[in-house]
């Protein structure tokens, strides 16, 4: 870790560093959530923040998601820049009214008087804990005008995107995939790591930096097919891209990074070069992220398309507990490979 140019961080550490750096330079940034203080957060993202910033900046809350989300909204309306952490993204439904009806609508309802610089952080993704601790919730909030939705795939992006989110004047949902943390889980054991997760974005500069919300990133350039993927699916898509490279098939892998706003330009210009596309997302299929990406390509890229854009998404089911069943529900490399081969036919 001595050579900063090659300093590596886990995504957990990168997220923590973005929080620490913003809290040091902006006294308006405060933190609320369950076990975020003394305990350091269920996934240890906020460890030692209470010690550094004290109880006026770091608030350990009772189990009252709707209540502390509303407190976050009220604090945001009155000059703070709160970070509200949910222990698992699945619990956001307990606070849904404050997010959808208040945080996201207040600016419009007030005729532009209100701004709600609130960042909601939540770990998500299927990691074997059953249907109430496994969901990917991004689509509900893409469908919530007034919200921004961020879903990083690696430590470097996570730090820059979170820094931007913390400086944004709108409510931002910042979703963190548990398999990407590289950190311990509340159970104590480390979250099952995923072989597909490569070294992408491991090197993270120590100084603070921003990555604009609404700007996609091409993780791998290619000319035969465009794959738009998020979070863990970026890594699985890259594995498949490596395999296909051996066959001379060049896959372009695009990570939107933010789903709202969505960088349609990067996606559509890629399509103009490849004429074929597959979208890969861990959320459930019906009316999900994949549907929006397909619709965007239908509207903006129809004449470029030589084949239908295919969706590779989670099956339309609550996430089952059994590992074999969960793995069947969540997209994997062979699902992605099969879809790519179909659009290349």
């Amino acid at each position, binding site marked *: 870790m001595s050579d900063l140019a090659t300093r590596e961080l886990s995504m957990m550490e990168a997220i923590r560093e973005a929080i620490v750096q913003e809290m040091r330079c902006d006294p308006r940034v405060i933190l609320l959530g369950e076990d975020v203080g003394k305990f350091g957060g269920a996934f240890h993202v906020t460890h030692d923040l209470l010690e550094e910033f004290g109880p006026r900046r770091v608030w350990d809350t*009772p189990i*009252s998601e709707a209540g502390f989300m509303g407190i976050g909204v009220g*604090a945001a*309306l*009155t000059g703070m820049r709160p970070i509200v952490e949910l222990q698992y993204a699945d619990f956001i439904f307990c606070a849904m009214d404050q997010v959808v009806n208040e945080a996201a609508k207040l600016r*419009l309802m*007030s*005729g532009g008087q*209100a701004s709600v610089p609130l960042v909601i952080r939540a770990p998500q993704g299927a990691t074997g804990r059953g249907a109430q601790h496994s969901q990917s919730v991004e689509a509900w909030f893409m469908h919530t005008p007034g919200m921004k939705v961020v879903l990083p795939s690696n430590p470097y992006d996570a730090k820059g995107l979170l820094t931007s989110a913390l400086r944004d004047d709108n409510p931002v949902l910042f979703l963190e995939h548990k398999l990407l943390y590289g950190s311990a889980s509340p159970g104590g054991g480390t979250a099952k790591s995923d072989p597909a997760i490569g070294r992408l974005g491991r090197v993270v500069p120590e100084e603070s930096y921003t990555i*604009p919300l609404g700007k996609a990133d091409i993780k791998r350039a290619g000319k035969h097919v465009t794959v738009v993927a998020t979070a863990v699916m970026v890594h699985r898509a890259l594995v498949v891209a490596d395999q296909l490279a051996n066959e001379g098939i060049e896959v372009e892998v695009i990570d939107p990074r933010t789903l709202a706003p969505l960088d349609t330009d990067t996606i559509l210009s890629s399509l103009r070069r490849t004429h074929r596309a597959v979208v890969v997302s861990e959320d459930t299929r019906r009316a999900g992220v994949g549907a929006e990406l397909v619709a965007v390509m239908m509207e903006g890229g129809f004449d470029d398309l030589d084949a239908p854009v295919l969706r590779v998404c989670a099956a339309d089911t609550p996430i089952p507990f059994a590992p074999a069943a969960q793995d069947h529900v969540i997209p994997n490399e062979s699902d992605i490979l099969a879809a790519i081969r179909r659009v290349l036919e």
Partner: protein
Amino acid sequence: MNDLTHQLAPFDFTGLDQEFLLGMHRRMLQAREFEEQLYYLFLSRTMPGTMHQATGQEAVAVGVVSALLADDYVTSTHRGHAHCVAKGVALDAMMAEMFAKRTGSCKGMGGSMHLCDFSRGMLGAFGIVGAGIPIAAGAALSARVRGTQQVAVSFFGDGATNEGIFHETLNMASLWKLPALFVIENNQYALSMSVQESSALPNLAARAAAYAIPGEQVDGNNVVAVYRAARAAADRARRGEGPTVLECITYRFRGHARFEASGYRDPAEVEAWKRLDPILRLAEALQAEGLATSAELEQIEAEVRAELEAAIAFAEASPDAEAGDYLQYITAETAHV
């Protein structure tokens, strides 16, 4: 105590000067007149949206807000006109908002159920019952973090005390000794449901005990009693001693919304309460104490009526909010990223 018709608080004017008292009287009249004018506007022409009148409840809004400072915060409800008037939101802008005009407090984007004026610390009416409760607590938390002396008041109805968010917020406000004031406007009904039908413990102030918060019932049709209770609670909050729950016992003279007929209420009950009109009660007490003559009071009434006529004229003369106006208000431009 839920039925004021049996126990009224006497008016205690000690230490309150005439100007302050007449100011509260004027505020109550402004709120009353604002809504009564609207009532007839809704009857006589097609107005956009709907409205919920607080007619008969004005002493709660005015009494509480009179105990606050200009930079204190307020969150309100679907029945929020009186809170806005009390907090000093311009009548012109409020009326223009009801007409969906560009000159409205919310540029015509919010309407009756979302009236707000951040320059006045009025963080908004909320159309979601209970939604303003944690938001006021959040404003109180923010004041604490910023180290100011501000307090935050949340107004909400008896029905709102059955939303879980009320319970979650009170617990945190008490744990953290937030400078917050939770004002229950107990007007006896939540739409058609009486407090007895919807709350297992009709004494709503008593619910505060579950969070080690002092809870007090007040004659909500006595603006001075409300003011004194709110003042004590606000002072306590500023001293860092934590939140207070104030249950103001009152009654709405009109229907739940617009012309809702309130067939679920006994007309005799309505009549009994109308005899406890908070504005008349203050007027009588002021005259009895020689603090105002009927002539002075009529003068104020005339002035208020003129203000409202001016507000309506302002609204009518203002440009309509137009088709594309909303586009600029969806998201905030963030300069510094």
